[in-house]
């Protein structure tokens, strides 16, 4: 059972990661664009138990760290996604009002993405990643939040369906 869940989840994350790197990253969207992979990870975390969310965050973080477009040290994204995925799941797990309401899920993911990016920039600064300008940082933070607000509602049904497929559950969102 565990192997089946792990295989399906890994395949989904790997496919979305390839889609992100091969297609979405090349679109050169304005205001930093969006990351369907990050949105998937955060949505997955919001739907999972804290331990599963942390494990999914670890795997997603490793993939993001291995991405050619990442300039931070390996483990940077991994650390952030383990902590944030665990935190999201910790706050939402067991609260059916939160998990059953798509609007709450969307807002939580958008906010989580905002904090993930802030956390990434801050820890990156501490780890010696060359800092970017204040205006550019602000534009990217706001832009990616707006993008997430647009993309998350579109992705939510698909992610919920994939989650059901992987965990043999029937989510009521």
């Amino acid at each position, binding site marked *: 059972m565990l192997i089946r869940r792990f295989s399906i989840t890994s395949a989904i994350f790997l496919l979305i990661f390839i889609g992100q790197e*091969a*297609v979405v990253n090349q679109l050169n969207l304005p205001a930093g664009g969006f990351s369907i992979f990050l949105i998937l990870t955060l949505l997955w975390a919001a739907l999972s138990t*804290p331990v599963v969310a942390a494990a999914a965050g670890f795997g997603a973080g490793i993939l993001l760290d291995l991405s050619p477009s990442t300039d931070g040290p390996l*483990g940077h994204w*991994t*650390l952030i996604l*383990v902590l944030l995925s665990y935190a999201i799941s910790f706050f939402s797990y067991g609260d059916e009002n939160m998990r059953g309401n798509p609007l709450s899920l969307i807002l939580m993911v958008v906010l989580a993405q905002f904090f993930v990016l802030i956390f990434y920039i801050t820890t990156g600064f501490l780890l010696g990643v060359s800092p970017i300008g204040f205006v550019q940082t602000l534009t990217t933070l706001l832009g990616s939040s707006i993008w997430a607000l647009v993309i998350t509602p579109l992705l939510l049904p698909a992610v919920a369906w994939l989650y059901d497929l992987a965990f043999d559950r029937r989510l009521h969102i």
Partner: protein
Amino acid sequence: MRNGGENRGRLLVVILIVSSLFLITLDLRGVSVISGLRSGTHTALAPFQRAGNVLVSPVKNFVNDVTHLGRTHSQIEDLRKQNQKLREQLISRKNQDGQIEQLKSILDLAGKASFKVVNAKVISQGSSLAFTRTITIDAGTSNGIKNNMTVISGYGLVGVVKEVFANSALVMLATDPSFKVGVRIAGSQQIGILAGLGSINANLQLLDNQTTIKVGDILLARGSINGRPFVPGVPVGRVTSVSNAAGAVTQSASVRYFSNFGALGVVSVVVQAPSADPRDSLVPAKPVPTPVPTVTVFVTPTPSPSPTTK
């Protein structure tokens, strides 16, 4: 039991966090395995990225156009202006090429007859609504041009300087209805007066009733005293039809001018006539007919079938 599961879960999270920190430390210490992992991922992703690029290119271009709408628009405007400029240059170049050709033929003609000429560009064509046929050239008194000087093109007579200014001059064309020039027929040396009719054709009136004229005869300017208004020997036109009206004292003919008055770009003003009359040396060469190859087809009749008997 539940407590144990929670503890295991927390332990797993702690292990994941420690692993992340361990990876960061390894990478910051420059362990080669880590950089190898990244380059391996890069190599593995490269084909997908190439395929993605092919798929995404139209969308990417569209998004790029939308996001850089102003810049794209200004680029299109710049290219339009550049295109227009190049078109103008091309037209100007074609025009210049045409003028060079005209100038070359004028200089050939003037050189053959030893005319001293001043070249000028046609800067204006007089309106036909004014009932006179004139052109304005960009040379005037400052270039040594005076009234009543002959104006020629590469093909022959164009007209005569009617009015001259400091840097321009008005030329009466040979097609003007009030234009008259004394001519002689090349070869036979019969003389007559050619009068403009307002078109490419002119009317020739022979002066001697004993002489005859035929279609195809070439007319040259007879010349005036001191070469003004007409220098001798300039080709004028070719006889296209002869009129033999009953009761007419002399023969008259219709003449087609050699010069193309609709395409005058460069002309020359003869400022000094040659010391000797060039006679018939300026008569244009007859066009050489191009041989048309004929094809002979031999047809061999097929033998008719003979009746056969059984």
